[in-house]
């Protein structure tokens, strides 16, 4: 690939999605955009770039950006966050709120929906705790194809075997040939919407719990800062933000702080109980 083409594409992708591609990621662009070029009957990536420069083809731009997203996801990814949701976060938030107030959870950058459905399953498994309280899970992603898959709620045998305990598979899925379809009850707990993390998220409403996992890793520092700032704006004063296992916002935000003893969980500064000792 020509250096100029790489520059053109990486700048466009960064502007549209925040995904930062350093020049050692040339192979990634080639692997992902080669097939797209072929599909569009363009000779190669140079042809793709030429087309993008000559006509304003918004769909093509979107396809290019989407092709550069990494959509890897699995049910109950890393286990721990969902365990903490069940044992610590939910009980605390439920205890602090009037019963009629809906619990709102955001799965930001939800990919094919496994995270949102894992949250929904966790909530259903803790029904007694919720005691009839209304729940809304909003799941968003930039990638149209992922949202379609997420909404369908149909997963391959391989996908359901990664992270989903067999007992929960039996309880919440039905078999469709070699695939597995999520129960309507779970599907109705989640509303999937297209949303770009670079944009304002106030329109999504206020959230008690935000999962924003394994997406910040693709952004550079200023972009991460902006995303965290916007999440902080929609987070309830006693809400929490959960990040991926390898992500941290230390040094990136003055509005959020780590919850002591809970790696990867953040809360608005000053919201925690004042230290009981000392």
């Amino acid at each position, binding site marked *: 690939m020509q250096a100029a083409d790489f520059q053109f594409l990486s700048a466009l992708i960064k502007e549209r999605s925040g995904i930062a591609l350093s020049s050692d990621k040339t192979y990634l662009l080639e692997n992902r955009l080669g097939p797209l070029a072929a599909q569009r009957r363009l000779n190669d990536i140079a042809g793709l770039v030429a087309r993008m420069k000559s006509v304003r083809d918004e769909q093509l731009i979107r396809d290019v950006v989407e092709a550069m997203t990494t959509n890897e996801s699995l049910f109950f990814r890393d286990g721990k966050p969902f365990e903490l949701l069940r044992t610590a976060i939910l009980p605390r938030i439920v205890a602090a709120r009037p019963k009629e107030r809906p619990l709102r959870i955001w799965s930001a950058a939800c990919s094919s929906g496994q995270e949102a459905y894992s949250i929904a399953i966790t909530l259903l498994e803790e029904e007694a705790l919720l005691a009839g309280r209304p729940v809304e899970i909003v799941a968003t992603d930039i990638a149209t194809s992922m949202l379609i898959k997420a909404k369908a709620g149909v997963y391959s*045998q391989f996908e359901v*075997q990664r992270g989903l305990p067999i007992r929960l598979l*039996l309880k919440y899925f039905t078999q469709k040939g*070699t695939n597995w379809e999520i129960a309507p009850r779970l599907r109705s707990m989640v509303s999937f919407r297209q949303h770009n993390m670079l944009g304002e998220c106030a329109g999504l409403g206020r959230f008690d719990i935000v999962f924003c996992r394994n997406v910040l890793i693709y952004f550079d520092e200023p972009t991460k800062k902006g995303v965290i700032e916007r999440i902080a704006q929609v987070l309830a004063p006693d809400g929490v933000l959960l990040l991926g296992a390898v992500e941290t916002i230390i040094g990136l935000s003055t509005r959020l702080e780590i919850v002591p003893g809970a790696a990867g969980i953040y809360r608005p500064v000053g919201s925690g109980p004042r230290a009981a000792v000392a």
Partner: protein
Amino acid sequence: MRTCLIVDDSRVVRTVARRILEELQFASREAGDGQAALAACQEEIPDFVLLDWNMPVMNGLDFLRALRQLPSVRQPIVIFCTTENDINHIQQAIEAGADEYIMKPFASDVLQAKLVQVGLL
């Protein structure tokens, strides 16, 4: 070192599973059918059993039922690993006391994920 018993009538499958499990620091034994597996368990209870369904002499489900009857101080964790991929088989296995279920073809990261789920990793 944790111990496991690999029960499958295919030597190829046993070898593949053994390789994965040894990499995960399990000491493995093998059995080619349910009866041989039961004998192996009577000799020494492993930490977990990776269990095929269709086997000559005694199938996996009959083995599991017999295993759960064994008067033993400790029962192994049992993970089915089989091409019997329909919901009825899975249900039967769980009712007979299986802890987890892997539908073949199985990938090593699926096995690893299941081992984490049952607390063996």
